[in-house]
C-alpha cells in the first residue's frame, strides 16, 4: 500500500507540475455537455450504493443530484464515475469529473496541496469504537490492553495510535486490508474492539452474525467532516456546489420539504419567497435559474429528508442526526443566509 500511496503522491506531483491552469468555467462545460460527471465511491452503504434497479443512491449521490437540479432543473442529469480512494483526486484534477462527492474528509493538506476546494460538509463523521456488549465496556477509556481490529494504512490507524498514546493506554493492532476481512476477524473474536468511522461502524455492524450483540462506545476520537470537492480555481462552480448544500439545509430549517414545496410557493414569508425564487434573483447571482432551490427541494428533498431516506433511523443503518442536526437543534448544520 505504501507503494501505491507514493505512486499517488507522484501522480499528484505530476498534476501540480503539468498544472491544469483551471481552464474555462465548469458551469459552461457542464451546460454544453448536458450532464454533471460526479465522482462517487465504489460502494459505501447509505452514502453511495446501488439500489435494486441499478441506480446510485445515498446522501453523497443526493449532493450531485441536487447540483444537477440546480443547474439543469433535472436531478437525473448526472453521470457517475465510481472511484477508488487512490484515484479520486486525480480524477478531479484531470477534469474527468466535475464534482467529487465521495465521503472525503476535509483537511488542510488536501485543500491546499492537491489543487482542490472543499465546498462544504454534508456529513460530520468521526472515528468511533465498537465492542461486543458482553465485554461490559462503557467507555473507550477502559480499552487498555485491548486488541483492536482496523483497516491497513488509513488515517483510522493513525488516529487510533494517537488516541491510545494520549491516554497512556496499550493496545495490540490487528490490521487487515479489506473491510470485509476486518469485520470477519472481529466477528470471529480475534480482537476485542473494531474501530472505523461511526457511519462505517453502523454499516459493518449489520454484517455481524448478531448485530445486537455489539455496541458503539460514546467517544468520537477524530473529526471527519465529509463533503463534496471541486477543482481549485473555478469560483463560480465552487459557489454553486457550496450554496446547493446550504440551500438543502436552509430548506430543512424553514420546514420546506419535497412534499409541501408547491404549497410553500404561496407562502407569505419573505425568506421562503426568496428561497423558492418567487421573489428576488438569488439564482441569477449564481448563474442559475431563480427556481434552483425549488428544483432541488422538489426533486431531491431537503437535507433532513435526504439524511432520513438513506442513513436515518428508519433505514437499516439507523444513524441518529447527532452533530448532523440543524444548528438550532444542537447540531452543526448551519446554512449561511440566502439573501
Amino acid at each position: 500500500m505504501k507503494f501505491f500511496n507514493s505512486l499517488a503522491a507522484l501522480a499528484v506531483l505530476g498534476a501540480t507540475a503539468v498544472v491544469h491552469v483551471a481552464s474555462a468555467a465548469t458551469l459552461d462545460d457542464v451546460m454544453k455537455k448536458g450532464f454533471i460527471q460526479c465522482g462517487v465511491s465504489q460502494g459505501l452503504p447509505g452514502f453511495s450504493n446501488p439500489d435494486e434497479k441499478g441506480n446510485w443512491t445515498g446522501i453523497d449521490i443526493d449532493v450531485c443530484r441536487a447540483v444537477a437540479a440546480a443547474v439543469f432543473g433535472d436531478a437525473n442529469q448526472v453521470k457517475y464515475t465510481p472511484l477508488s480512494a487512490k484515484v479520486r483526486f486525480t480524477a478531479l484534477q484531470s477534469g474527468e469529473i466535475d464534482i467529487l462527492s465521495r465521503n472525503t474528509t476535509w483537511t488542510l493538506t488536501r485543500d491546499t496541496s492537491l489543487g482542490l476546494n472543499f465546498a462544504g460538509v454534508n456529513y460530520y463523521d468521526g472515528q468511533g469504537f465498537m465492542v461486543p456488549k458482553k465485554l461490559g465496556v462503557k467507555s473507550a477509556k477502559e480499552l487498555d490492553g485491548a486488541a483492536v481490529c482496523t483497516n491497513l494504512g488509513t488515517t483510522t490507524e493513525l488516529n487510533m495510535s494517537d488516541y491510545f498514546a494520549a491516554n497512556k493506554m496499550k493496545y495490540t493492532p490487528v490490521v487487515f486490508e479489506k473491510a470485509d476481512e476486518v469485520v470477519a476477524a472481529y466477528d470471529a473474536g480475534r480482537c476485542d474492539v473494531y474501530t472505523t468511522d461511526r457511519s462505517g461502524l453502523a454499516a459493518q455492524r449489520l454484517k455481524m452474525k448478531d448485530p445486537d450483540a455489539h455496541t458503539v462506545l460514546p467517544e468520537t476520537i477524530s473529526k471527519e467532516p465529509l463533503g463534496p470537492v471541486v477543482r481549485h480555481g473555478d469560483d463560480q462552480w465552487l459557489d454553486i456546489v457550496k450554496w446547493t448544500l446550504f440551500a438543502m439545509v436552509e430548506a430543512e430549517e424553514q420546514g420546506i420539504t419535497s412534499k409541501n414545496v408547491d404549497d410553500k410557493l404561496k407562502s407569505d414569508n419573505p425568506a421562503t419567497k426568496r428561497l423558492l425564487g418567487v421573489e428576488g434573483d438569488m439564482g441569477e447571482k449564481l448563474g442559475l435559474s431563480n427556481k434552483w432551490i425549488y428544483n432541488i427541494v422538489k426533486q431531491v428533498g431537503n437535507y433532513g429528508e435526504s439524511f432520513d431516506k438513506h442513513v436515518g433511523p428508519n433505514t437499516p443503518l439507523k444513524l441518529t442526526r447527532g452533530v448532523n442536526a440543524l444548528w438550532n437543534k444542537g447540531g452543526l448544520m448551519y446554512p449561511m443566509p440566502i439573501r
Partner: protein
Amino acid sequence: MSSLDNNAQYPVGEHPNWEPPVSNVGVIGWMKHNLFSSRLNTILTLLAIYLLYTVIPPVVQWAILDADWVGSSKADCTGEGACWVYINVWWKQIMYGRYPDAELWRVQTAYVLGLVGLIPLMIPNFPKKKWISAYLLLLFPFMAYVLFSGDNLGLKLVETPLWGGLFLTLVIAITGIVASLPLGILLALGRRSNMPVIKTLCILFIEFWRGVPLITVLFMASVMFPLFLPQGVNFDQLLRALIGVALFAAAYMAEVVRGGLQAIPKGQYEAAQALGLSYWKTTIFIIMPQALKLVIPGIVNVFIALFKDTTLVSIIGLFDFLGMIQLVNTNPDWLSFAIEGYVFAAVIFWFFCFGMSRYSQHLEKKLHTGH
C-alpha cells in the same frame, strides 16, 4: 467352482481358470489396493474421511438444505443457511452491471452470436472450421463491439461506465485472449529474429511488461495517464484497461510461445529450408503448428490467469463480476450477505476456468499425433 480344490495338483497346462480372490476385485479390492495398502495409508485414509465428514455436511446444510432459494426481499431469508435470494434479486446487476434493461437483448444477442461460433469449433470434425474461426476472430469482435456500445445502426449509445458484472469480465478476458495470442506469437518470433532492431524492440517490450505487476499497469493507465492529456480530452477508462491487459498478457504469451519454438529441433528448420520454403512459409506451416501444440498447457495457463486477473480492474473503478458482487453488497438492505456473494463468484470462476482447462486437455489429446 466350489468343487475345485486349492491344493489339488493338475497336470501341466490343465490348471483351470479361477476367479481372483474376492478381496482383490471389485470395490473391496480397489479399496484394499488404493486406500488401505499400508499402515500409513490406512491412517491417512481415515484422517481424510474424518476431514470430509467435518467439512461436507455443514457446507451442504448451509448451501443447500438450510438455504433460502425463493423470494424477493431480505425478509424471505429466514433460515440459518445461505440466502440465495440475494443472488436472485441482484442477478441482473451481477451479470450485466448497470447496462440499461431495455438494451440487454444486445448483450444476449452477442452471447448467442459468440456461442454459434464457439460450439461448432468444439465439435470434432465439424466442417469448415477455418471459416468459423475466421468469423470468431475477425467478424465477431466487430459485431460484438457494435452491439455493446451502439451509437450506430440505430442502436442507442451505451457508455462503458454502465458495463459491468460477468459481462464486463468476459469482455476484458476475451479481448485479452484474442489480442494476446497473435501479438504474443509475433513477439516471440521477433525475439528469436536475426534482425537486431526488431529483436531489441521485442526484448524491451516483453521484459518491460513482464517486469511490472498488472495492478501497477492498471493504476498507471488510470491515474497517471489522464494527467498527460490536455484537460477535457478523456480516454475511455475501459479502453485503457483493455489495452493494458492485452499488452500485459501478450508479453507472457510471447515467452510461452518462445518456449515452444525452442523445443523444435533445428532439423525442422533445415528441412524446410532445403525444400525451398520462405521464412513465413516455414514458420506458418512447419514450425508454428508444432510449437503451439507443445505449449497448449502454457497458453491455457496464461488464459486462465488472465481471466482471473480481470478482477483487478476494480481498483480503477470498473465493476467486473467480482467488483459488482462486492458493490451490491453495500446496499444497506442487503449488508450481511458477503459470503453468499463470494461463494457464488467462486463457483462461476471455477466453472469458467475448469472449462478452459478441460478443453485444453481435449485439444492436447486430439493434437497428440506423436512423432
